[in-house]
């Protein structure tokens, strides 16, 4: 039974309806009675910040639910409202089952106390009774691999040991619903993997997990469903891949609007400061088939098309356009040119426009890419160079870590077989 079916049959593990949260940010904080007494009539001016504007969603029991969004989108505020740390101004939140929150690991740890006291303290914070906490101390220390250091005060622990201890306590909690806020950002890769293993185990045990993160690969790998927040509203809710793509797009739109490019009309004249003599220039470039779509995400393993619209200012005989795709380290990953093509492109007259399309099977590793288009006259130098004016993001559900991801077949042959064949 899939989680979405569960959502319809059973009462949800966690549900929110119309949750709103507004913060009043005083322009000048009055912290003393004297300031109050000196200016009793001055109204305290506030800026209102709408962190959440009507959030409604439900999480099914046993679901791994991701909440994503950019900084300031309201995702952490939402988590704090769900956890009961903030009071929602409007709307309702319901929960079915024991709920535990991990906004930070090791809340309440006291550096001057030894592991035992801190385990008990932290365990009680997370909802255990002192007896339960003490009974689980052994397994906590064991999981954290800190047997030799159990009597040490926490201030003598390395930061890694600290995190290991905190995490080991956290996973002892018997909550049915876990709210997790990017605690995985800490620790090395091995530790993060350990965390994910535990979350996977908890998911398989049927616990409900609500997970706030920036890490889209984690969303893709673990979440049944995800929700994208932007400026306190739900922008997308559903399939994690779609949500992750949308998140990438949102992030990219912001970068683009910062450059002032997104909404502005296509330049009808060649921008200043470009390399080349200006006989022809790239007036626009985009990803995908349609110019208007402003597609910014390309999926790994699918066909990828990049197009450049070239405007000719004077007559050009047989122009060529080449494409270089750079990654964010300015390394050229893919290079292609129309000059390699057998046929000549022909003659273009002043005022004419032409679209040059480059298509290939997307083998790029996940990340951000910058297409560079260069317009040349055959044999006689650069007419225009279109560089770093837009970028696109490649998403993949699985990546091995190379600059490109190509399908590789791996075969194993035993050395003994080779010898046999040689002898034969």
């Amino acid at each position, binding site marked *: 039974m899939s989680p979405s079916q569960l959502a319809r049959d059973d009462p949800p593990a966690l549900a929110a309806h119309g949750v709103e949260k507004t913060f009043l940010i005083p322009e000048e904080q009055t912290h*003393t009675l004297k300031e109050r007494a000196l200016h009793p009539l001055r109204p305290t001016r506030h800026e209102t910040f709408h962190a959440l504007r009507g959030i409604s969603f439900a999480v099914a029991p046993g679901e791994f639910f991701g909440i994503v969004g950019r900084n300031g989108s309201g995702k952490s505020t939402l988590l704090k409202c769900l956890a009961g740390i903030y009071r929602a101004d409007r709307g309702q939140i319901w929960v079915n089952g024991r709920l535990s929150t991990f906004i930070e690991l090791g809340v309440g740890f006291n550096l001057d106390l030894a592991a035992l006291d801190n385990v008990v303290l932290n365990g009680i914070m997370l909802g255990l009774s002192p007896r339960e906490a003490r009974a689980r101390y052994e397994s906590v220390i064991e999981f954290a691999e800190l047997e030799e250091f159990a009597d040490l005060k926490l201030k003598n622990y390395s930061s890694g040991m600290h995190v290991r201890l905190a995490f080991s306590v956290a996973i002892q909690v018997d909550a049915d619903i876990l709210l997790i806020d990017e605690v995985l950002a800490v620790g090395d890769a091995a530790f993060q993997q350990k965390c994910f293993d535990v979350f996977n185990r908890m998911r398989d045990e049927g616990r409900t997990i609500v997970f706030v993160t920036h890490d889209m690969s984690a969303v893709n790998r673990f979440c049944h469903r995800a929700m994208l927040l932007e400026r306190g509203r739900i922008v997308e809710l559903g399939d994690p891949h779609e949500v992750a793509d949308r998140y990438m797009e949102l992030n990219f739109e912001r970068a683009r609007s910062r450059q002032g490019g997104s909404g502005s009309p296509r330049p009808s004249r060649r921008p200043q400061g470009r390399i080349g003599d200006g006989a022809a220039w790239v007036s626009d470039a985009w990803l995908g088939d349609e110019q208007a779509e402003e597609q910014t995400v390309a999926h790994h393993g699918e066909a990828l098309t990049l197009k450049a619209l070239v405007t000719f200012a004077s007559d050009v005989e047989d122009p060529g356009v080449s494409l270089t795709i750079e990654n964010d380290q300015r390394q050229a990953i893919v290079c292609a040119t129309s000059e390699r093509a057998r046929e000549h492109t022909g003659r273009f007259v002043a005022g004419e426009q032409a679209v040059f399309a480059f298509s290939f099977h997307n083998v790029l590793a996940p990340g951000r890419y910058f297409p560079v288009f260069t317009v040349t006259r055959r044999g006689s130098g650069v007419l225009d160079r279109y560089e770093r004016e837009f970028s696109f993001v490649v998403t993949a559900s699985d990546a091995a870590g190379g600059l490109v991801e190509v399908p590789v077949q791996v075969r194993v042959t035993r050395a003994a077989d080779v010898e046999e064949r040689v002898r034969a």
Partner: protein
Amino acid sequence: MSVETLPEPLGQPIRGPSALAGDWRRFWYLTFTIARSEFKLKFFGSMLGYLWQLMRPLLLFGVLYVVFSLVVKTGGSAHHFPAVLLSGIVLYSFFTEATSGAVTSVVGREDLVRKIQFPRLVIPLSVVLTAMFNLALNLVAVAVFLTLQGVHPRVTWLEIPLLLFVLAVLATGVSMLLSSLYVRFRDVQPIWDVISQMLFYGSPILIPFEKVRSLHGGVLGVSWAHLYMLNPLAVVLEQWRHAVIDPTAPSAAQAIGGWPELMIPLGLVVGLFVLGFWVFNRSAPLIAERL
């Protein structure tokens, strides 16, 4: 965008933070565990540990005793002056330790308040509880001292728990009030420092009640002695002196002029407790945002 339509109700509602959340057991576990670890830190934090906790009141006692009974000779005339002085210092120390510690406690525990859901009242109460642990140990020292001074247990010692209870209620009420006010007004701390200094001289610790009673005049027809006894701390200390140390000393009711009048300072204790709880309870849901 898809917004699911929700049937109602959908389970336990989450109402946000409060002074007292439903689970009393967790409330107690948290208060006790925090208080215990704080106490443990004081106890084992330094080499001489508990000795320092005891040294403070004892040193203060030593200085004041020398000055006021050998040099200035104000208190020396009173019966059992050293015993009264020491127990006064110990009880007063409990009160200031609890209240002054509580003032900054909620702000100081920011890490907890912002990151975890728990009844907010745990924080000031754990400070009061830590002070109580300390008081319990200091009272052992007081008992030893009283014995050395020739003060022997009497039936009226049964009043001790009641007196300590009144003192604890007073300290808790003030702690709740101050800790929530401090979140918004940071000058609560220096103000409280001054007030607690005043309370030291405004209670029968150094100056025996008889000295106050012998003053002439008053305000609006109320004698100085009766005004003085409106201070709940004075009531506790004076009754302590009467019941524990010196039966010939005036009891609290005698000092203030009768049982009906005694209800005023006791009412003040209850009033401060109710006010403290009310203020704390009102500000509790918003503490995490205002820090």
